[in-house]
């Protein structure tokens, strides 16, 4: 497949994530949209990794070029997991106190 397709697909997903972040008010859904963005990045990284691999493969059949991209994806997943645990803890803490996860309630600091 031309890598272009994957770039566009990933960007589309990424943009959908951003739109979600901008349009939703539920903190959890915003967070989910962020996860969606990360996944778009992952997809793109894998596509690029395979692209670079294909390029290097032409020269050297035993090449391992491209593994770094996939490992980066792995690290992103790892970090995302850590982030989720903390993030949800924070959201739950918030919910415990104000019984809402509406980000529009986040305006106490404005006063």
């Amino acid at each position, binding site marked *: 497949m031309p890598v272009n397709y994957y*770039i566009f697909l990933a960007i589309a997903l*990424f943009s959908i994530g951003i739109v979600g972040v901008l349009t939703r008010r539920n903190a959890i859904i915003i967070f989910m949209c962020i996860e969606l963005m*990360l996944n778009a*990045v992952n997809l793109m990284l894998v596509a690029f990794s395979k692209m670079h691999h294909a390029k290097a493969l032409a020269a050297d059949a035993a090449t391992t070029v491209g593994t770094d991209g996939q490992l*980066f994806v792995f*690290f992103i997943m790892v*970090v995302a997991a850590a982030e989720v645990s*903390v*993030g949800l803890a924070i959201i739950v803490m918030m919910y415990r106190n104000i019984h809402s996860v509406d980000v529009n309630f986040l305006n106490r600091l404005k006063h």
Partner: protein
Amino acid sequence: MNTLLISAVLGVLMMFSGVLLKSRQVIRNLAIAGMAGLLLVNILELGGTTFFQINTRDMMAFDRFSLLFITVAIFSTLLYLVLSAKDMEKVGINYAEYFALLFFIVCGIVLVSSFKSLLILFLGVEIISIPLYILTGSDKRNLKSNEASLKYFLLGAFSTGLMLMGIALLYGSTGTFSTSFRLGPDVKPSALMIAGMLLLFFSMSFKVSLAPFHFWTPDVYDGAPTVFTSFMATIVKAAVFIGFIRLFNNAFGLMHGQWQLIAAIITAATLFIGNITAVFQQSVKRMLAYSSIAQAGFMMLSLYALSAEAYEGLLLYTVAYSLATIGIFAVLIKMNDYTFSGFNGFARYHPLLAATTTVFLLSLAGIPLTSGFLSKFYMLKITLASGKGMWLAVFAVFMAAVSVYYYFRVIQAMYFKEGDDPKIQVTTTFKWTLVVLAALVILLGVFPNLLLYWVYF
């Protein structure tokens, strides 16, 4: 490398200390001793003694600059701990855990100040961010703290997303995560690379709260427990800035001309917004939050100029800024009333604290013979030396004058207004540390060579 490993180990140690040790005093002393030890090993490494020979496969480079900055950061953290560690008790029950998180943040600081691979940058930024989200929200009953934490978290995660997208695009165009691909100045970068660079720029701007990506900062700094705001606004911010400049110097240094204008605009916007909004604040804490934005604007000048001297200047700036802000926050934490009027008549009841606070404020305002002046001086100097930044320098100067307005409001309140005794109690250690801090601020202002002597790359 010394610092990275040992701070991680110390973090774990602190984590267990909460279970094993009952006395908070002991935990605190342990943390301070640990930090001092960390400083020691880092200085040893600066002198060439590394305990661990680990092949990082060219993902990290402990060059002079990074080691020096780490030293500075750890030193500031040490001072911070000595001054404010006791005040963490007020935040919540997880006393030892807070220290553990601080040590982990130090790990992250080491990473972002010595990375050579985007992967390490990413991990470093995250190791800094995640504990900070927690520390921000550690005052669990306080709605403001909760809110700040959530806000910080959502926006932090969002900017991480942007950053990763940037990294991905860069990877697409270069095929590597190393920052040393260094495209020549005459090579036309691909669209992928430009898009990636911009996304990285924006996300890093988010992390160091440059306008227009700054909007989270005041709320978060205001909402977080003041002890942690102090740490966040100083050492962490400086560290991320170091990462920022490291990234853009190493990876995009040769394309400097192509993004300089953006940097300039963002700098100007940051200076403007930070300073002007700070003027209208009623709470000193919030004012300091905005002032941190303004100071970030000044630090941005180093990115705008991007020369060898810019590194020196940034280092000096981070030192000056961190020391002074830590000092002010240390006093602020003790206060019950964070508004300006809360400081009314402070000098009468606490002349020593007031005097040191004044020194810090003067340093932040950039009055000569304080380290703050010298750092601002450096920033202006490199801006002018880059040959194009006259307007930016003049603008920065005007904004610095504006900053004097709000910094001096505190001084005015302390010295020239009448007020009640704020009834705060401080230990002798606290006082002496403050004095040392103030002395350092002045000493670095008078003899910057003490620090600059070490800075050569």
